[in-house]
């Protein structure tokens, strides 16, 4: 069979395995390994398997992932989420829908020390949801803003997905983090704006609470100074090149770990819990990475990406139209698939196509700009039906809110997401200007 045909067949086979509940990493490993064997015979596989897991697991760039996960899990037990939410509601609570805005703001703050959307949604939901309901905020607004706010965990650096994109496309992780900062901040403000519009339309959904004096705000700020300090030192140190992202993650984990250790209710069993959730999530990610390694080396062997890149470059398509098509495809795929698996599965095929097109930017700029767009679009899948994970987590936590109410509450945030993607798509300098400042 011709190699390219084999590559094209591999995708439906993979999807069938996935539909039959085979774990994504395992399915990619099996399809990739078998495919490679069909092209090159079994011998290369036999010797590849001897050390492939070792080489992948001991890759220095990837060691940042378990460390960031450890940091996020410590942060979840450090009382930082409460402190962030209290401070934010003291600052914003006097506005219409202000406490929901505060929840989004606190999510952004927590996202700065946590690289995962689900963890951000779950941690902030635990703190903010009871308070929002107590103050009479409607079910759709309170669950919607927390489900959407959770995606800030990934959009604001550090972000696990961004690290993996950078490694796949051989980009500088530090530059990716730098480029993600402004879009992340825009995302937080966009969500706050979405709440402002929502309460203008449905005034009963979120009432204002009394304005707090500045003295109280200042007092509450003292509760979050360590979040600010850890984030500034960690991300600042990474941006300025004082230390590598891995070292930064270790510093962050040490910082959040110390804060957690000084909590009253922190015990040995809490530490064991932190270790176990870090363990399960890290293993999950590395299994997918291992599978992707086999699958992607097979796909490269089929020359499918080159053929596709040649085909697209040969046709008279507008480069922007191609990016737009890919982004739309991502929105649809994201409704059904996990974001990590989606990136690992599609970037090796699409990236050569994108990088071969002429956007009037350097290749590195295109790679970074496309990466940030991909990150945002992929995260949209977390709050869209039928499998929007953030929506289900928050909805389950609320208990008394029907799922369609939560999906309704998410709509204004989806609109804000789409506007932001369009903005970043049309004006790449929004993503790229910080790079010019630093480099």
């Amino acid at each position, binding site marked *: 069979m011709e190699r390219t045909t084999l590559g094209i067949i591999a995708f439906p086979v993979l999807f069938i395995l*996935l*539909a*039959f*509940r*085979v*774990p*994504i*990493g*395992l399915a990619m*490993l*099996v399809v990739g390994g078998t495919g490679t064997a069909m092209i090159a015979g079994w011998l290369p596989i*036999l010797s590849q*398997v*001897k*050390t492939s*897991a*070792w080489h992948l*697991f*001991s*890759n*220095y760039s*990837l*060691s940042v992932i*378990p*460390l960031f996960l*450890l940091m996020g*899990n410590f942060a979840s037990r450090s009382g930082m989420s409460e402190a962030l939410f209290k401070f934010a509601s003291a600052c914003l609570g006097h506005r219409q829908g202000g406490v929901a805005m505060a929840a989004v703001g606190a999510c952004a703050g927590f996202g700065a020390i946590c690289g995962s959307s*689900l*963890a951000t949604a*779950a941690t902030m939901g635990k703190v903010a949801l009871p308070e929002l309901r107590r103050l009479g905020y409607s079910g759709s607004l309170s669950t919607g803003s927390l489900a959407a706010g959770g995606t800030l965990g990934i959009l604001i650096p550090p972000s696990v997905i961004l690290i993996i994109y950078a490694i796949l496309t051989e980009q500088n992780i530090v530059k990716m983090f730098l480029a993600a900062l402004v879009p992340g901040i825009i995302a937080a403000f966009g969500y706050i704006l979405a709440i402002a519009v929502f309460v203008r339309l449905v005034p009963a959904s979120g009432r204002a609470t009394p304005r707090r004096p500045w003295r109280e705000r200042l007092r509450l700020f003292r509760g979050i100074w360590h979040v600010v300090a850890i984030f500034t030192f960690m991300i600042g140190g990474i941006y300025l090149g004082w230390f590598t992202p*891995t*070292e930064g993650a*270790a*510093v962050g984990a*040490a910082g959040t*770990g110390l804060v957690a250790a000084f909590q009253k209710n922190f015990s040995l069993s809490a530490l*064991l*819990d*932190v*270790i*176990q*959730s*870090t*363990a*399960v*999530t*890290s*293993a*999950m990610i*590395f*299994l*997918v990475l291992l599978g992707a390694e086999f699958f992607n080396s097979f796909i490269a062997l089929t020359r499918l990406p080159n053929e596709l890149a040649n085909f697209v470059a040969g046709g008279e398509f507008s480069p922007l139209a191609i990016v737009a098509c890919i982004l739309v495809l991502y929105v649809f795929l994201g409704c*059904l*698939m*996990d974001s*990590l*698996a989606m990136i690992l599965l599609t970037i090796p095929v699409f990236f050569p196509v994108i990088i071969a097109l002429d956007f009037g930017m350097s290749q590195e700029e295109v790679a970074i700009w496309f990466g940030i767009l991909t990150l945002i679009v992929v995260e949209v899948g977390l709050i869209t039906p039928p*499998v929007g*994970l953030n929506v289900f*987590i928050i909805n389950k936590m609320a208990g008394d809110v029907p799922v369609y109410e939560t999906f309704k509450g998410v709509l204004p945030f989806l609109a804000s997401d789409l506007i932001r993607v369009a903005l970043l798509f049309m004006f790449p300098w929004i993503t790229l200007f910080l790079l010019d400042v630093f480099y």
Partner: protein
Amino acid sequence: MRTDADIAVSEENARPSDLFGRVLHQVALALAIFGGLVLLVIVGINSLSIAGRFLFSSPLVGDFELVELGCAVAVSSFLPLCHLRSGNVIVDFVTARLPSSFKDALDALSALIFGMIAGFFTWRMCYGAQDMYRYREETMLLQVPLWIPFLPVVFSFLVLSICCFYTFFIDVTRVARRV
């Protein structure tokens, strides 16, 4: 779709009733905690190295290498627990409405495949370790012989493969009892 490994962890999985299962869970848990401690040591090494660089302008020699080796040991030791807690990402969307015995049968099948793959890795990695020992592969700066940290990785894959065959057996008996 299920990726909520973070959340799934807190919910204790159904405790296995058989002795073998209980022991296996304890082994997987102990292995993961060992890996977690290694991760904490990595955090310590990095912090020390940074502090050393800033305060005394003398970094730890070979801290990169220790991080790499530690990470490989830690991550692989997490794999068995992740499988036993069903922490791996699966697409639940297509089969969500099917009867649970059908899902159990599919899970049994993928556990069987996983067990065979993990076993295959274990078998090949034994040769990998042998190669490392024979050719005296070691790290650049600290000259740590690679086979030493490689052995716990092989052991983790062995435990992973046993865990997969165990859940295969459990799923099959569950299906058989219902049919």
